[in-house]
């Protein structure tokens, strides 16, 4: 009951209204044949294509392909990036050996890796996984590193007074202490991941929401382009929600108030 009340707040009503306003404005722009925008489809056409798409198998197959790519690349980035960042934060020697090279590669936009990725990886899927990985990896590492260095020294001192050995300090202080930054890294990383994925699919992909949108363009099917864009938006949003949910599960101390 409490939940129901929460859904219909003034604020959510305003949010709904903003979407309606946007659609009305869109309708008006197309109707008035505003210069340069005359190719824009009516909202109704997009809706019709959308309904059609949702009923087709290929549409959902494209979802599946994109989600798997994001999943594989993103998970790989966490599995490698989180320990890498923690090691960098915990060991000065490791940091000294890796940080400069890391910082040189970090500013390279993930999309700039596309040519190399296509050339070096034996299959298209592997190149795309790799690109998604690159998109999330640097962000994860830099966030974990920052998280570790932001842990107050008194927490480490308190733990060692209380009898924690260095390995306890690592597992019981550094790891949970950097968790908020890890989750932040994941949230930002997830956004970048979708950016990279869509670009990679448009250039190199076969299947996937990005490819679907691109093919709609080559077939000059403008309503389908818009359907693709909306789908990508929804997919990215769902992934962000998943990360937020994960964050709440992992950090109960952040949720209670």
């Amino acid at each position, binding site marked *: 009951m409490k939940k129901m009340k929460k859904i219909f707040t003034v604020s959510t009503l305003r949010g709904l209204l903003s979407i309606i306003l946007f659609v009305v404005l869109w309708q008006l722009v197309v109707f008035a044949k505003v210069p340069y925008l005359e190719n824009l489809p009516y909202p109704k056409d997009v809706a019709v294509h959308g309904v059609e798409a949702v009923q087709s198998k290929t549409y959902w197959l494209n979802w599946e392909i994109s989600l798997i790519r994001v999943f594989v690349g993103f998970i790989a980035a966490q599995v490698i990036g989180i320990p890498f960042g923690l090691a960098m934060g915990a060991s000065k020697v490791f940091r000294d050996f890796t940080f400069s090279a890391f910082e040189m590669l970090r500013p390279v936009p993930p999309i700039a890796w596309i040519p190399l990725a296509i050339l070096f990886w034996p299959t298209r899927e592997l190149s795309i996984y790799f690109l998604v990985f690159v998109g999330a990896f640097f962000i994860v590492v830099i966030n974990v590193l920052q998280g570790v260095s932001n842990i107050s020294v008194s927490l480490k*001192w308190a733990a060692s007074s209380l009898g924690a050995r260095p390995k306890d300090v690592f597992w019981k202080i550094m790891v949970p202490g950097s968790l908020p930054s890890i989750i932040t890294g994941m949230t930002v990383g997830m956004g970048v991941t979708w950016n990279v994925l869509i670009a990679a699919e448009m250039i190199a992909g076969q299947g996937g929401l990005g490819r679907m949108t691109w093919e709609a363009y080559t077939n000059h099917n403008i309503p389908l382009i818009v359907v693709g864009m909306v789908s990508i938006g929804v997919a990215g949003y769902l992934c962000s929600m998943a990360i937020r949910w994960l964050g709440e599960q992992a950090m109960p101390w952040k949720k209670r108030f």
Partner: protein
Amino acid sequence: MTTHDKIEGAISIRKVTKIYDPEGARVMAMKDCSFEMGAGEFTIIVGPSGCGKTTLLNAIAGFDTITSGEILLDGDTISSSLKQIKPNVDRMVVFQNGALFPWKTVIENITYGPVVQDRMKKSAAAELAKGMLHQVGLGEIGDKYPEELSSGVQRRVEILRALINQPKVVMLDEPFRGLDAVAKTVMHEFLMEVFCASPRTMFFITHDLDEAIFLGHKVVIMTTRPAQVKKIVPVALPWPREHHIMNSREYLELKQEVLEAVHEEAKKAFEAGERELA
């Protein structure tokens, strides 16, 4: 406690000098500082900001090295220029800005020591912690996270987290700074209660002179940086103390004595600051 329990935890500070960054800026935080803290004695440290009080605490706790001199605990050297220092469960610290683990509940915080030392099972430690909380009227907060608590309650939890380990020495670095007068009174009564229940050596840094005299067996007044002992004022008021002693003549005279010494050093610190700026 029973009177025949032998209280341990006598600390000797012998000619301790600490220079930060000896190769570069060379900040001398302490110079030939010497004094004694008896076992079970409640020692208060006061002195101008930046004079080196926290530096001394870090040295005793084993968080940071000293440049020369020696620190002994019950006759054993725990820090010197030669010795590899290490924190130990016999010396517990309550930190200046609080150091409860935000990701642990109150019970998990308090039981952290006994559990990580493999001294107690988690469940047994939790029972003990619950009992301790209950005894000080905080029975309801065991499952809360630190950020859900007021800073006064956080401080008490942090003190309990130290006490559950039965340390010989408890060190508190301006623990009640920023609390209002009423909250401070509650904290003083709390400390008085836990200290009477099991006396141990207390090393208590503060700026609040009322707090200093109300709680201390003696007040050690530090000089401006580098820290040395300027004066030690014994406080012979009977224990346990109640707040109305603050109106007694004896108390006011002691306060006057401490105030004069502190004021003199504060003035020096101020003038030194002026010189540095000039």
